[in-house]
């Protein structure tokens, strides 16, 4: 059995799965249930200014029968009295000393407020802080949340205030509602943050009610931009994570990966791209805390299969596999192959290629089943057919190098090799 225990900035947890700062970590009742279910740690829902929430708070995007492919919320930071939160945090730490207790913070935008809040939270025995510089709604209008994270200078200033006072590790959570997460990431690392986490939610409108014409979520005939998360945002999160993991400066600090992590495979992908652990919310909100069981077991089995003894053995392993386009090998070529024994003749590969790609899949009429074959000369190796094929491993891509030696775009241009030749 592999060792899946995690050590993030000295904050130890039996597994790398933390619940992200969100409604599931709003109070003791939920957090104890999460710990009982096996979660490695929690980031307690953001403490800070006093707020008032509205109803409703969530909306989602469904996709062909799958519910909550993307999830959107307009809930603010914790709306419970600070004293109660602090008392409950303390109790949870005491009851589950082996789990990570990180507390998310978003104080009013002045040094004193941050210092006071830090002091109070440290008294609970919590193990670390996560600075909420990402919340895209409600708090930004008051100069907090994403308003801080979107401006590297302000972010830097706030982190400096925090580092003056904090005696436990500080993680800064980045907003994705920027062109690039790197400038803010660099600024806060320079300011001394011990770690980074990303991404927070992405501003969104999930849809419009076709009867009332009011976008969702609905609040008395109106709506507001919310924060988008869940499986739909995972690819965006992975990209942003990669930029942080590749940057010379930001890669110096540990990263906690967030954004649509729903199962152990997602978690492994985040970790391969540089996250030391992951934070989960939407999947738990959809299915409950029990999902952590398979996350642990799946991770363990995968690590055993791959021969990894501990998490550090694979964290970051894929970071340098993402390169610049001009570094790609132009001589690499592959062609789709359809396994006729597996083909169920649905024609999806054909119509996708025929209508939207390169007319590389030939239809030979049959009754009732047509036969589909690849026209090698037309196939550009784009993968589309393989992606739309409903049968596992029916369409595979077969390597057919143009030439044995690799050549990239820069070299290609240098040699004056032909362009637009397909």
């Amino acid at each position: 059995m592999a060792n899946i225990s995690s050590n993030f900035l000295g904050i130890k947890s039996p597994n790398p799965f933390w619940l992200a700062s969100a409604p599931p970590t709003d109070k003791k009742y939920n957090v104890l249930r999460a710990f009982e279910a096996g979660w490695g740690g929690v980031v307690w829902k953001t403490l800070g200014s006093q707020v008032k929430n509205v109803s409703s708070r969530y909306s989602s995007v469904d996709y062909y029968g799958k519910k909550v492919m993307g999830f959107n919320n307009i809930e603010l930071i914790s709306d419970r009295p600070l004293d109660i939160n602090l008392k409950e945090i303390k109790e949870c730490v005491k009851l589950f000393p082996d789990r990570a207790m990180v507390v998310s913070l978003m104080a009013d935008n002045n040094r004193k407020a941050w210092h006071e809040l830090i002091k109070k939270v440290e008294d609970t025995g919590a193990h670390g802080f996560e600075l909420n510089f990402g919340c895209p709604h409600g708090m930004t209008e008051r100069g907090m949340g994403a308003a801080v994270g979107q401006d590297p200078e302000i972010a830097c200033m706030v982190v400096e205030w925090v580092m003056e006072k904090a005696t436990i590790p500080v993680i800064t959570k980045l907003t994705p509602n920027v062109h690039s997460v790197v400038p803010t990431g660099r600024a806060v690392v320079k300011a001394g943050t011990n770690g980074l986490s990303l991404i927070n939610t992405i501003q969104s409108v999930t849809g419009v009610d076709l009867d009332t014409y009011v976008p969702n979520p609905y609040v008395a005939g109106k709506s507001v931009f919310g924060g988008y998360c869940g499986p739909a945002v995972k690819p965006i999160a992975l990209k942003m994570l990669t930029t942080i993991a590749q940057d010379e400066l930001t890669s110096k600090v540990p990263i906690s990966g967030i954004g649509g992590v729903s199962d152990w495979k997602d978690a492994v992908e985040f970790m391969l791209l540089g996250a030391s652990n992951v934070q989960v919310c939407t999947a738990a909100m959809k299915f409950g805390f029990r999902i952590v069981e398979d996350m642990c077991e799946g991770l363990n089995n995968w690590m055993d299969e791959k021969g990894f003894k501990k998490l550090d053995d694979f964290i970051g392993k894929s970071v340098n596999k993402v390169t610049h386009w001009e570094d790609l090998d132009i001589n690499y070529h592959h062609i789709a192959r359809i396994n006729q024994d597996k083909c169920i003749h649905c024609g999806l590969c054909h119509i996708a290629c025929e209508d939207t790609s390169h007319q590389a899949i030939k239809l030979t009429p049959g009754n009732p089943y047509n036969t589909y074959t690849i026209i090698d000369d037309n196939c550009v190796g784009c993968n589309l057919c393989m992606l739309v094929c409903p049968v596992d491993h029916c369409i595979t891509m077969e390597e057919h190098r143009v030439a044995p030696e690799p050549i990239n775009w820069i070299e290609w241009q240098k040699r004056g090799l032909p362009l637009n030749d397909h």
Partner: protein
Amino acid sequence: MAILNNRLSQEQYAENFSDEKPAFENKTAAIVEANRCLFCYDAPCIKGCPTSIDIPKFIKQITTDNVKGSAHTILISNIFGAGCARVCPVEKLCEGNCVYNLLEEEPIQIARLQRYSSEMAIENNWQLFERKKSTGKKVAVVGAGPAGLSCAHVLSREGIDVTIFEKEEKGGGLMTYGIAAYKVSPEFCEDELAFITSLGGIDIQYKQELGKNLSLDELQKNFDAVYLAIGVGETSKINIPGEELNGVVDAIRFIHELRTQDFNKTAVGDSVAVIGMGMTAIDAATQSKRLGAKEVTMLYRRTEDEMPCTEYELSIAKQDGCSIIWLAAPKEIIGENGKVKSIICSKMKLGDPDASGRRSPVDTGEIFTLDVDMVIKATGQKPFEELLNSLNIKNVKGRISIDENCATNIKGIFAGGDAVNGGKEVVNAVQAGKDAASAIMKYVLSRIHE
């Protein structure tokens, strides 16, 4: 042993004749199933449908909350889409071709999804079609069955006024009179018919029978074209001794009776033998059992490999507790006081393939006897050969001969459906009606310039 009606309580009848393949309970259930559909291109299921309904499209439309569009997609190809969803042998048509079969997975429940959309159209009386401007042409259709109504609906849409002449008291043909009651109820048939005719331009004259109170000459005089969709008649004679005995019943007449009166009025024997293994044989056997017969035995002279009914139909019969004797050919029906007492069958074996390509049954010389008080013949329906001959309509053993334009030997007279094919599925008749409608359109419009 006796042939009796009123064998069961009203509750038992209601239970026995309740919907065999109920519709989806709710929208969620339908959408879960609809989302399984892969949306195949040039889909094999469409090729399995004689009316070529764009199945992937109508299923996709259920998933996008466009049920009205879904119903239109179905009904534009098959105006009996709702009825066919209940009576089609789908496992050898659309569902049989579903690509999921190749994954050894359950095929998409196309029929139930089709029912979902098309019945919603009927229930809500969605007007999905508009008639084109009148062409001023009139067409007579003989027979308000699936072929006749399908033809009439297309013609009416194209701006032709159609009058249908029907010998029965109600329209729908076999759908109303010849199919098991647990598949389609009289109410459903009436609703479907009302929906079809709600388009307008289709007038149905009932109790009008060709060769009796309806003359083909008159029709030719008064209409621009005539479409004969007269179907086929009662069960052919099996020509064995005892066929005339009291208790020997024609399956078509038996089902007709059952479909036109309360269940407790239809009499059935204690022990029933059903001859044949087609869909009508199954409908007769299962319904005998459901009417309260103690024993029902189906006799078929070939084996399961050659049977005309589908596996699914056979499974209904088996689940209803009907016994099946393969390789059994009726030889003689024995009577007592003019009533059926038993049936003697020859034991058969399979010989060489016959004209149908199926191995033909050969008498082994051995016999066996079954004690029964009722024998239902379901060995194929007899076409209206004499009637056609008297009208000088060219036919082969009662099957009307038509050319590639659905035209008979008499100019302006077209034909289709069971009257031409000898008796196939409802869905085949619907397609025949569509084919005839386009041929008739061409014919009547070409005559505008004559």
